[in-house]
């Protein structure tokens, strides 16, 4: 009798896991596996589809700069010029965007009055919401004509640097213009990542710097930037990932041609993504398969950059923990 009177006792431990726990664990594990399957599926698709053209290719896929793939027999094409253009455009974008993004993030977190900081934060995020086709139109129709005189000036005064040798393109639809537009496009992600990590700088570190007579800039140099380094690098790498894959804006800005040119002020370079988008509608014969092979290279480059970013961020977190 006494035992039945006891208020609902917890069920004796049976060693069995509860049903909700099992279901949730299963769902979580399933999602994790699914993402791996998707990744593997994309990679497999690219490999399988690219294989025929890679087998039939009469020139070296990795070093050849020409693209004669739209034939039924003996195609000859290579990804070298495209890969070069892709990496170059992304590198320009990164070089231009990172310092500006760090500046914006520092201003938002440490200099701007709170209301202005909030507004500015929203505006920067808004940049990320602009469709890339709009960026392309803007780059092609507004920015490029504006840059023509700038490029002429650069060839005149900086022409001794091979990167800026003349004569400048008269349309300014060059890799540098594409890089500038890409820089604007990746600005929000780098800013957001930097801003987040600047917000996390422990108050103790900042006060330590201020308490020994550091100015605000010195405080940033002593406490904020060392702490935020991994976040900045991570943001920059994620931004670069986006710049590598950007298609529409680049395709609209660059005038189609194909060559490795270190000259940023002349037209001639092309990126993988833009090349695929432009060539695909006219692809015949081995053309489609060859474009997919180019896509495979882009996939590999982007994957490598993103994994590099993850590695840097993870290592930074471990150090500051």
């Amino acid at each position, binding site marked *: 009798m006494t035992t039945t009177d006891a208020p609902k006792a917890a069920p004796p431990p049976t060693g069995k896991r509860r049903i909700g726990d099992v279901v949730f664990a299963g769902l979580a594990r399933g999602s994790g596996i699914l993402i791996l399957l998707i990744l593997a599926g994309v990679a497999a698709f690219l490999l399988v589809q690219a294989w025929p053209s890679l087998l039939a290719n009469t020139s070296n896929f990795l070093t050849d700069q020409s693209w004669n793939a739209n034939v039924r027999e003996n195609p000859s094409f290579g990804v070298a010029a495209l890969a070069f253009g892709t990496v170059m455009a992304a590198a320009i974008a990164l070089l231009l965007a990172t310092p500006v993004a760090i500046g914006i993030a520092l201003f938002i977190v440490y200099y701007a009055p709170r209301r202005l900081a909030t507004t500015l934060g929203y505006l920067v995020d808004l940049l990320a919401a602009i469709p890339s086709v709009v960026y392309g139109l803007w780059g092609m129709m507004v920015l490029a004509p504006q840059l023509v005189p700038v490029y002429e000036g650069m060839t005149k005064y900086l022409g001794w640097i091979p990167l800026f040798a003349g004569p400048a393109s008269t349309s300014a639809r060059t890799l540098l213009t594409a890089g500038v537009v890409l820089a604007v496009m990746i600005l929000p992600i780098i800013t957001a990542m930097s801003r987040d990590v600047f917000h996390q700088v422990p108050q*103790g570190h900042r006060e330590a710097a201020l*308490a020994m007579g550091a100015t605000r800039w010195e405080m940033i140099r002593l406490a904020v930037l060392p702490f935020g380094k991994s976040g900045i690098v991570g943001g920059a790498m994620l931004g670069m990932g986006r710049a590598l894959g950007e298609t529409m804006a680049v395709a609209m800005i660059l005038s189609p041609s194909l060559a490795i040119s270190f000259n940023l002020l002349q037209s001639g370079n092309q990126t993988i993504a833009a090349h695929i988008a432009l060539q695909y509608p006219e692809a015949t014969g081995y053309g489609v398969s060859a474009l997919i092979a180019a896509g495979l290279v882009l996939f590999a480059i982007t994957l490598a950059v993103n994994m590099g970013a993850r590695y840097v961020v993870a290592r930074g977190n471990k150090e*500051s923990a």
Partner: protein
Amino acid sequence: MAKRIDVSGLHVYYSDFLAVEDVSMTIEPRSVTAFIGSSGCGKSTFLRTLNRMHEVTPGARAEGKVLLDDLDIYGREVDPVMVRSEIGMVFQKANPFPTMSIYDNVIAGARLNNTRMSKSEADELVEESLRGANLWEEVKDRLNKPGSGLSGGQQQRLCIARATAVKPSVLLMDEPCSALDPISTLAIEDLIHKLKEDYTIVIVTHNMQQAARVSDRTAFFNLSAPGKPGKLIEMGETNQIFTRPEKKETENYITGRFG
């Protein structure tokens, strides 16, 4: 080197909230002054107004006068950055810069004011400051290791070395031992005894035995009522405050009847 601080009629606000009301006191050079009182009575807030560190908190402001010898630190022309290099601070939680070596931590503040310090000058200053903080013998063989690898007590002494390397005239300490074990606390207290030969020292502490052990003068802060601003109740020789306090509130606090 050590300087006197004269505070008169100081009010501290957080936006519209009056946190500390009408404090006037004199802090003697080459002595240790302890601030005691229950949590939230404004003693740390008041301490931070002495080198304008409260200005780091958004909305915080102080009204009144604080004189460092003859210099009004709230004067119109006075740069808070200059005030803080003259009045150093050590915090409750030891906060060495985590990415910097022990050596770089010590030299960080001094480098701000003197960027063209030679290697030998820097070496000398590091050794002098670490010796001054009773830490030299423990770290001299690993000056290039990160400061975050030291024990809590060593980190706090590293922070004291970092603060003294700037050659301030006053050292403010905000509960410097509250996160430390008794042995490390003793090491810091010994250090405070030694430092008072050269500096004016102000220490906020929750530990009344510590106040009695290290300080020459003690100031007791309390809230006039819950939700009301904190006030300086009484200040005097430490010995007198702990044996013959003038105010009933002080006696209640030090005998543990409240707070």
